């Protein structure tokens, strides 16, 4: 299996673990992740304002490149995935955005029109839908027995459900199924899909702390020993801003460990 791969800025810098373990694990599963030859920062937040065009361009360029390569695009960072997936939806469904983006890219870069026809999936969807959790389970050489893991979804992976189309936004299972596949025990807790206050950490640290303390407290009281996430900002926030932090790992690190390639 071969995919185009979009790592994004944070995975090339502060979140190298998320990226490196993701690549190693993919290799162990017989998957080729071909990094896009050129990519730009996705902008880290989805441009909610419907009249913003420039902030959508980097996502469209990445999607066009994957289309040219004839491959599905795989993302790994929750935020990149959120932005690129939703911009792809805009290019499919919003005529005004599609026309303005294409007019700009055509005039400035002579680019072919792009109409949202590339497919973008998150690494977890690749595991679930292309590899299959049963197959993954059969490839685990070092099952993480006895580990009680809380899946931390946060907000960006799941919402808005009708655009992200990854899982049930209110009762997701993809990360718990992943935890089972690597031989550990998923622990459910109420706040697994509540926001950790990611970007507010630069604006108002106390607000972020309050969010993170509520989430880690809820996880701990539910019997969670460690949290896993796909988001570098959640990872930072949960680790750095909690008064009594729980251990936090990128899901790819545990995946690489289970596959014996860590």
């Amino acid at each position, binding site marked *: 299996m071969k995919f185009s791969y979009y790592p994004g800025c944070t995975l090339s810098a502060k979140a190298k673990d998320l990226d490196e373990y993701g690549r190693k694990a993919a290799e162990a599963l017989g998957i080729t992740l071909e990094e896009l030859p050129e990519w730009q920062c996705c902008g880290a*937040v989805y441009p*909610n*304002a419907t009249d913003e065009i420039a902030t959508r361009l980097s996502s469209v360029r990445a999607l066009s490149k994957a289309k040219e390569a004839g491959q599905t695009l795989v993302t790994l960072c929750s935020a990149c995935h959120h932005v690129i997936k939703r911009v792809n939806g805009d290019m499919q469904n919003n005529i005004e955005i599609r026309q303005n983006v294409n007019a700009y890219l055509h005039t400035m870069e002579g680019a072919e029109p792009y109409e949202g026809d590339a497919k973008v999936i998150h690494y977890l969807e690749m595991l679930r839908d292309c590899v299959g959790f049963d197959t993954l389970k059969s490839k685990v050489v070092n099952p993480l027995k006895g580990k009680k893991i809380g899946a931390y979804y946060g907000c960006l992976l799941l919402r808005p459900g009708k655009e992200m189309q990854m899982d049930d936004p209110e009762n997701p299972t993809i990360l718990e199924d992943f935890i089972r596949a690597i031989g550990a025990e998923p622990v459910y807790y109420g706040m697994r899909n509540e926001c950790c206050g990611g970007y507010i950490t630069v604006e108002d640290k106390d607000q972020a702390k309050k969010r993170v303390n509520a989430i880690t407290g809820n996880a701990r009281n539910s019997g969670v020993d460690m949290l896993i996430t796909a988001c570098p900002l959640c990872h930072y926030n949960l680790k750095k801003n909690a008064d009594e932090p729980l251990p936090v790992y990128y899901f790819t690190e545990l995946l690489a460990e289970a596959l014996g390639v860590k």
Partner: protein
Amino acid sequence: MKTEDMIKEITRISGGNPAKCMKCGKCSGACPAYDEMDYHPHQFVNMVLDGRIEELAGSKGIWNCLSCFACLERCPRSVEPARIIEAVRVVTLRKAGANHLKPDDIPARLDDDIPQQAITSAMRKYAK
């Protein structure tokens, strides 16, 4: 700008629709920034509808909404409060000299572990 034009402008930029709100309060019930927002999401939506946009533009809530989309997900009427709040924020930021965060403010707020996306997203949310 005339009040009714402002309402139209915010609605257009947001891609949501405040007129569909049935005042059920679900959005505010779901909001993790409820305590920090001076006007809570359901009030915010209705104030846009009433044309009280200047008031909202000067409120703390436009900076404290987390863009977590809980309100948008749980609203039974597809009002999309998160996007309406964002529209008021961007219209405020687009005025000359209205940046809420300046590049010079950033270094003091950094630590060794802060991921790039925190800085990029803050600049995207709080400055133009």
